[in-house]
Structures are given as structure tokens and as C-alpha cells.
């Protein structure tokens, strides 16, 4: 009886250690597989990243340059090279006190400030242009915003941006389509938080501009 039991347990032990060995092998295989497939995909993505990096950077720079000229109410050169040249010759980029870029146009009184405000879903970053002689707005453009599409995101539409040209702050907002004086702008129906953020941005910009 005892002997049989002993054999059984021995067998069990042997079986256990076999299973353990197998288990370890399977586990190692899984780790190796996961490691190698991750490696392959990461290498692939890195190559694509290296290949597209300069293009992505350039696209972002061109976008910023276009936005600055749009805000300054200056005609935007059509081709990318012309835009680069124009920018090189006519625009001075400096860093403002709040460590955001500020642009100054040569031979004119126009300055473009970069202002951040808190939108509904995230930061709204805007370019706000001023004619320093009259402190009138030359224009506004949003370079970063993640507002609700169809509601708050309508701030990026042309009618909204264009309404600020030539006006003078500090601003208040009125219901859509009702602005009729120099210090009012059309709010966006259904996007009160966004509208408030825009009010903050334009008024902050006015403040910064007047302080100088």
C-alpha cells in the first residue's frame, strides 16, 4: 500500500516538474514572441516617423506663418517658398514675457500676439493682431482648439474670425447676428463656454497690447 502511494506521489512529482518545465517554456515563448513583435512594429513606426518628421514640422511651420499673416491682414503668398521668403524678409519673431512667440511686421505698426485661453475641452491658442498706432484689431485666428464640432468649433469659421477686423476692445458679446458696435462680437449659440473663452482671449490681448 505504502509503496504504491510512494510511487504515485513520485509520479505526481515527476509529472509536476514536467508540467512546470513546459509551462516555463510556454511562458518564455510568449514573452519572446511579444518582445519580438513589439520590436518589429516599433522599428517600422520609427522609420515612418523619421521619414515624415521633417515634412510634419514644415507643415506646422507653414500653418503658423499663414496664420500670422492672416491675422495681420496681409495678403498671403500662394506658394510655400514665397511664404517662407516673405516671412524671412518682413516678420520679426520674438519671445514675449509669457514665453509665447510674438510677431512684428517690419515697416508697419502691426504686432501679432499669441494668447492662450481655456475652452470647453482644452486650451484655445489664438493669434491676435493689432495695429499699435490705433490699437485696433487687425484680425484673429485660432491655431489650436478642440471645441465641439458644429458648436464651439465654429469659432474657426470665416464669418466669426472676420468680424473682429478693425474693432477695438475691450469686448463684450451679444447674441449671434446682433453685434452693431465697435466693441461687440457675435457669440455662438449653444457654445457659451467657448464664447467666454474668446472674450477672455481678445480682452487679454487688448490688455497686453495697451500695456506697451
Amino acid at each position, binding site marked *: 500500500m505504502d509503496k504504491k502511494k510512494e510511487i504515485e506521489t513520485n509520479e505526481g512529482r515527476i509529472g509536476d516538474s514536467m508540467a512546470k518545465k513546459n509551462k516555463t517554456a510556454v511562458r518564455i515563448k510568449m514573452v519572446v*514572441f511579444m518582445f519580438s513583435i513589439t520590436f518589429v512594429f516599433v522599428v517600422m*513606426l520609427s522609420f515612418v*516617423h523619421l521619414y515624415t518628421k521633417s515634412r510634419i514640422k514644415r*507643415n506646422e511651420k507653414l500653418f503658423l506663418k499663414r496664420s500670422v499673416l492672416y491675422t495681420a491682414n496681409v495678403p498671403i503668398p500662394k506658394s510655400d517658398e514665397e511664404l517662407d521668403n516673405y516671412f524671412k524678409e518682413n516678420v520679426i519673431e520674438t519671445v514675449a514675457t509669457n514665453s509665447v512667440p510674438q510677431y512684428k511686421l517690419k515697416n508697419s505698426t502691426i504686432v501679432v500676439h499669441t494668447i492662450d485661453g481655456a475652452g470647453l475641452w482644452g486650451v484655445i491658442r489664438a493669434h491676435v493682431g493689432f495695429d499699435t498706432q490705433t490699437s485696433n484689431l487687425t484680425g484673429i485666428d485660432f491655431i489650436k482648439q*478642440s471645441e465641439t*464640432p458644429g458648436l464651439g468649433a465654429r469659432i474657426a469659421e470665416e464669418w466669426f474670425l472676420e468680424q473682429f477686423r478693425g474693432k477695438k476692445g475691450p469686448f463684450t458679446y451679444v447674441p449671434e447676428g446682433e453685434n452693431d458696435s465697435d466693441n461687440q462680437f457675435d457669440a455662438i449659440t*449653444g457654445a457659451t463656454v467657448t464664447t467666454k473663452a474668446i472674450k477672455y482671449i481678445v480682452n487679454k490681448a487688448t490688455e497686453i497690447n495697451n500695456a506697451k
Partner: protein
Amino acid sequence: MNKKIKKITLSNLISENPVFVQILGICSTLAVTNVLKNTVVMSIGLVFVTALSNLTISMLRKWIPTRIRMMVTVLIIASYVILVDMILKAYLPEVSRQLGPYVGLIITNCIIMGRAEAFALNNKPLLSFVDGISSGIGYSYVLLIIAFFRELMGSGTIWGIDVIGSWWVNWSIMVMAPGGFFMLAIFIWIVKGVIIKDPEELKKI
């Protein structure tokens, strides 16, 4: 083979449609359908990612250990989503800016994971590829129909162009999430209640 492809395609488009039969991918259905343009790009991205991830997973299916298959599928799907994001940023910066966070959200779409799990892990690469494309299209056309009505009623426009005129008062609720719920529910109701009345009929297609 051809018969199989036809069967898979039809079932993905109608009888097993990921959106109105399986009710998958609802988050993105609600999020992107308020403007038609976003919907189109989201759809293209989804078709691309589903097809390619299905193909890759199917090619690797014999080597993927069963216990870590989820990790592997997520890794593959994520890689393709990042790839789409980088290509859009480099070659179509305008579209990429408009879509913003939506490209990254493709990864959270349950349809991709579902197809990988239910189909690509057990089928040959070509079939899986076809399955990926057809379920992507099955998702896309439903979204496009919903987006068409939501943009029309919510903003009075189609593809950003004013079509209704100034007499129309925009329904703000249509561009917000509740509008998406209403439209999706109405769509499912019409499809299941009026067009396809008998569930048995679906299986015959």
C-alpha cells in the same frame, strides 16, 4: 472562394452589420456624425485600419500564442492607427487638423478588435482582408446616413455648404451627443421595423 467572399461581404453590410445589428462602435457613431466631413475621414481611416490589421493578424495567426492574442492585436491595431495619423499629418495637414483627436480614437473602435478576435484569428489572410474592408464599409454607410441628417438639421449645411437657407432654425441638439442617440435609434428602428421586418429573412441573405 468567391461565394465565401460574397457571403462575408453581404453579411457584414446587412445581416450582421456592425452598427445596427451588432451595435458596435457606438462611441464613434455618436462623436463624429455631427459633421459629414469628419465622418468621411473617420470612415476611410477605419476601413484602412480594419482591413490592414485583419490582414496582418490573419497572417500571424499560426504563431500568435492564444493567451496573449489580445495584446498582440492591440499592438498591431495601435501601430496602424499611429501610421495613419503620421501620414495624414505629413501629406494632408488640413484634413489632419480638422480631425484632431478623432484619428487617435479609431483605436477605441470595438469593430476593429471584434473583427480581429472573431474573424482574423481563424481565417485565411485574403478572406480576413475582405472581411475588414466590408465591415468597415458596413460601419461607414450607416454613419454617413446619420451624419447627413444630423448636419442638415443641426447646421443647415451639407459638407459645409449652406443648402437649406436662412428660414431654417438650426437644431442645436442635433450636433450634440443626444442628437446622435436619437438619430441612431430612429435609424435602427426604421431598418429593423420597416425595411427588414423578419429576423429570419436576414439569415437567408
